């Protein structure tokens, strides 16, 4: 099974081609542009639903959804060509393919292209593409060959595709990293002060239905690193994850935690397998094959230079919502609506949530807000059809309130279209706190020159998709 794309397009917001790179010479830019402009104008008719479908109801079969809804699926077929696209600012990135290519790989590749462009031009938008079209062509040539993704590490690419004109005069060679086993780090990096910053960031996703039941809750965590280390350092990281601890033959008493799914960045997988034993094996074949791994089982890796995500994890055990919001909506007569919203922090008192922002939806035709709060400030944000309540600092175990009154127009359309039923959405940050209880036990840096590096570890919990449906 093989499959490559035929061309990559960068299009403006109206679907016109800004730059394109033809990899296989079997698609037409004109055709692609025509198709795509039509698509985003929503003029493309859905597949073959004529009015003349004679439904034989006597022998009726369930023919549901023969028709794709007229939505922008990111994968669209037209006249022998599959178009896959994503949007970023006012630019569309799109591939055209005639083969059965790997859709997941190509769509992810497009997202990586955005990252690379952002690294090069700070922001990817129509203007920055025009301003840098020469580099854009160069990058497109290097990131993909004959429609197959090649390198998408911005840091590495920038070592042999430079933007400054005079630096181009120096003969460039492919950096070792491009073809090296350690493809993410070049040799000879030097810092005066060797430092590592490790941020443990957890996002809490929660969905509460209109009965007040928590129907989904999970935590997505990330270990984000910024490294300023000289040479080729090896890092060893110890966590209090139960599986890891048990694999290391230590007892998992006390504070060990269970993580559902762990993802490692490329670097760790490579380094882990190459130089040590990959911790993954431990995770995956724990029950059967532990005895095989007698060596060091810590997470070991050679970090890339600068910032990167070392590892992400997910845990889906139900957690008590950190901030609970209840809203009572009363419609007094036809012309007035009253909201009473209570917010309660359900974490320990020694922690404090900061930058709390609670968005309570109100009818789109509401006017004359009259708002009173017991804490923070609340204001009507008509562009969001919501009342936005901001609390700078919200300590644990507290409850605050806001009351608001709005006028409604007394005349309503006879056939009312259903109200947009947006949920209450909450944003917050809680520093020095993790929901999962994950802890970094140690972070050692070993480099052959033997320098001392300073590790800094921070913890923070944030609201991810935190939604409570209105009762």
């Amino acid at each position, binding site marked *: *099974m093989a499959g490559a794309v035929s061309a990559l397009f960068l299009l403006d917001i109206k679907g016109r081609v800004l730059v394109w790179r033809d990899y296989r010479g079997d698609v037409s830019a004109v055709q692609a542009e025509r198709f795509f402009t039509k698509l985003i104008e929503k003029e493309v008719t859905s597949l073959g639903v004529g009015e003349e479908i004679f439904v034989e109801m006597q022998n009726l079969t369930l023919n549901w*959804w023969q028709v794709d809804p007229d939505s922008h699926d990111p994968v669209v077929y037209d006249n*022998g060509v599959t178009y896959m696209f994503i949007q970023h600012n006012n630019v569309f990135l799109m591939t055209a393919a005639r*083969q059965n290519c790997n859709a997941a790989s190509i769509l992810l590749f497009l997202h990586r292209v955005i990252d690379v462009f952002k690294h090069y031009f700070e922001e990817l938008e129509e203007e920055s593409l025009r301003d840098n079209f*020469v580099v854009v062509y160069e990058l497109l040539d290097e990131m993909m060959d004959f429609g197959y993704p090649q390198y998408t590490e911005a840091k590495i690419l920038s070592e042999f595709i430079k933007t400054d004109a005079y630096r181009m005069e120096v003969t460039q060679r492919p950096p070792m990293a491009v073809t090296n*086993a350690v493809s993410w780090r070049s040799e000879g990096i030097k810092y005066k002060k060797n430092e590592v910053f490790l941020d443990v960031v957890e996002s809490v996703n929660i969905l509460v239905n209109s009965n007040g039941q928590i*129907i989904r809750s999970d935590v997505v965590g990330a270990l984000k690193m910024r490294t300023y280390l000289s040479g080729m350092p090896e890092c060893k990281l110890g966590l209090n994850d139960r599986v890891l601890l048990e694999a290391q033959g230590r007892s998992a008493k006390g504070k060990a935690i269970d993580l559902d799914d762990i993802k490692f960045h*490329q670097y760790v997988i490579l380094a882990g397998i190459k130089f040590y034993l990959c911790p993954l094996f431990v995770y*995956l074949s724990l029950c059967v094959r532990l005895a095989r791994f007698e060596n060091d089982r810590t997470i070991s890796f050679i970090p890339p230079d600068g910032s990167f995500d070392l590892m992400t994890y997910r845990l889906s055990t139900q957690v008590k919502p950190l901030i609970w919001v209840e809203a009572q909506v009363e419609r007094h007569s036809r012309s007035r609506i009253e909201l009473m919203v209570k917010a309660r922090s359900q974490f320990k008192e020694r922690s404090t949530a900061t930058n709390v922002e609670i968005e309570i939806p109100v009818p789109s035709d509401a006017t004359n807000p009259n708002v009173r709060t017991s804490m923070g400030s609340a204001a009507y944000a008509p562009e969001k059809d919501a009342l936005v309540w901001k609390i700078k600092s919200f300590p644990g175990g507290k409850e605050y309130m806001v009351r608001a009154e709005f006028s409604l127009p007394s005349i309503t359309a006879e056939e009312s279209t*259903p109200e947009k039923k947006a949920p209450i959405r909450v944003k917050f940050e809680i520093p020095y706190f993790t929901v999962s209880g994950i802890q970094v036990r140690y972070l050692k840096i070993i480099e052959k020159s033997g320098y001392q590096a300073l590790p800094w570890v921070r913890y923070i919990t944030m609201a991810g998709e935190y939604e409570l449906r209105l009762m």
Partner: protein
Amino acid sequence: MSGHDSKYFSTTKKGEIPELKEELNSQYKDKKKDAVKKVIAAMTVGKDVSSLFTDVVNCMQTENLELKKLVYLYLINYAKSNPDLAILAVNTFVKDSQDPNPLIRALAVRTMGCIRVDKITEYLCDPLQRCLKDDDPYVRKTAAICVAKLYDINAELVEDRGFLDTLKDLISDNNPMVVANAVAALAEIQETSARPIFEITSQTLSKLLTALNECTEWGQVFILDALSTYKAADALEAENIVERVTPRLQHANCAVVLSAVKMILQQMELITSTDVVRNLCKKMAPPLVTLLSAEPELQYVALRNISLIVQKRPTILAHEIKVFFCKYNDPIYVKMEKLEIMIKLASDRNIDQVLLEFKEYATEVDVDFVRKAVRAIGRCAIKLERAAERCISVLLELIKVKVNYVVQEAIIVIKDIFRRYPNTYESIIATLCESLDTLDEPEAKASMIWIIGEYAERIDNADELLESFLESFPEEQAMVQLQLLTATVKLFLKKPTEGPQQMIQVVLNNATMETDNPDLRDRAYIYWRLLSTDPEAAKDVVLAEKPVISDDSNSLEPSLLDELLGNIATLSSVYHKLPEAFVSRAKLTFARPDDEEYPAAVETGNSESPSYEVDGAAATSSQSFTSHETARQPVPVAAAPTPSSAPASPPAPVPDLLGDLLGLDNALVPVDQPIAPSGPPLPVLLPSTTGQGLQISAQLVRRDGQVFYNLLLENNSQVVLDGFMIQFNKNTFGLAAAGPLQIPPLLPQDSARTLLPMVMFQNLSTGPPNTLLQVAVKNNQQPVWYFNDKISLHVFFSEDGRMERANFLETWKSLPDSNEVAKDLSSAIIHSIDSTVENFAATNVFFVAKRRNANKDILYMSAKGPRGIPFLIELTASVGAPGVKCAVKTPSLEMAPLLFDAMEALLK
């Protein structure tokens, strides 16, 4: 690091091209470079700057890498329109491919491969050869992909220059990136070639699995995708592979995860231990769930794939339904897919929660999504009998909201629920009727009308309700009209009172006179005729019990599902269609049988086995001796003049001009070619419409104790076809070619016949005996053609199969009765005993005895099949009348069906 390239887009007022030309030829480097940038800018905005070709190419010889890249880019775009001028660039390309800087070497090869001009391609070979063996892995990885580029332009060149072997060597390269690109290139080449080029053996497998650990993320995807076609030998190997692939599930790249899932699912098919399978399912669930935290476009791909995975292995995500609940901000395409999966995972255990969700979605604002949510409730009702009542009450609640499209959608699904559970929930009809006036969509109207007609006897005012629809009959859509017609007939049959009688008159009139819709008119006439001739019969027809419908949420065919699962992560799995349905590149448009079925097959064209020469002079080996004999006395049953006789002695004047022409055609066949016998027309197995002009007719025949494949090849295409080769797939009798196929180059409109000697028991297939013979024929100009032939057992009957009467009786008695089977050959006929006996003798079925019993003749015969299996045959028939009863007694009973087939063919 922002640039200021946009200035190059600004145009000068007049004479842009001459101005650029001047600048390109400037002696100042900077000015030159700026000029090239302007040219590229013009090209980018779609201006035609091809007239500057020579001037731009002149800038190619530069030390400046940036400038060089720009010129290369220009070349890729315009070389095709200036093929003759493109040659100018060749020297620089070749020089660059030897540059000390690996970046430039790679760039040169990469670019040359993109210029699809024949003349350039010729010069690509030597640089490519060098670069494939370059010291620098960056150059090698670029060269590996370049082989695929060259193959796409000129496959023959790639094969002739041995690039394929070099590419295969790169699989063992010490650099993982080179390995990954070589795998991608080989996989692509394999896709377009019918010949096995890239076969994954257990050695390659293990090599690639090792390389996997060190590859870049994209390389891992190439390798996993290529390996997913590998079929493990047994459960143990499958388990080993899975064990090495599972760590990929922890990769941060979703594509790697999906490709790993694909491979694990493929191997799981072979794993027999339920514990291992259960364990694997458990391991795959968390990574699949995590995919839903990816970017929305990737979530969409993941969801389309998960939809397939849960159809095959529902247990994997059975407990994870909550993760598919829609978030407020999910894009609509993600919500739609989540809904679909929620229906698939809905069960009695979680239905309450699911219904709450659906109800929530049904009050959102996106109309399509709301509709789908309403339908989802209906589908759950149909799927889960015990939850049906709860589903219906949710639907009724939704109807009460009186949002127009919700009501219409609800009515459509309720009609389906009525069909699924007849006579159960009619009590809600009254509620439905309240919303009658709000219906304006044809499908909803039609559904409501169907409900009214179906339950006319329970709805007191059914006639009034229908009448209100009838007023607008002529303006309605066809689907509504059809339903109105049927419903009115039902009403009339159920309540044959005056009102309905008048209505039926109106409807029938309308539907027959006033419409141009043939479906409607025909149905109306049928009803009319039925009602006027036999109203009771009409009742039986119109009010007949309808088959119960079932849920279609797991609707993919199992075989299709399996194939789609083999394509996880690809477009095929997103579309839920096989690649053939949308891949427009494929050069092989026909369905190729599974590669695995042609594993050990020898390329007869290259085989070292003794060759078959019909030409007497070359006959030395004993094998060719027999064939030689055959050729000498062709076709005992010949009806047409043999071609060999045609040139020697022109036949007596034939009135038929065509016949004469044919004779002349044959006369053109050079004398030194194998002379093949002609005979009765052979069955056409590959019609020229399928074979791009090549027509192949063939049949197995027996001559002088040997089996031959009698072949006729006709070239109706416009090109000369040569280099014919043949091979046979595994078959019950292990038939294989004993020598290469001897077919001269076929000119257009030319044809050739040959007798290909066959050997038996060479490539035996397992399983119960069958008559299928799969044949592949290839030539140098066309793809490989596959066709099926039918083996007739009688070609194996040996000449020594005659049995004496005593011997026959003895054998008959020695075999148990359970070894006797009989079959009525209804289309067979015996015209006369003598001629039948004679015909049978010609095919080595020997007469033993006959007797008469009650007007029927009974014949006893014997034959000896492959491996000396005796067949004792009893035929019972009345002479001249169709229908022969054939009974056979044989030690290998599984051959009996084949014998019946053969007898039927012989008695036609």
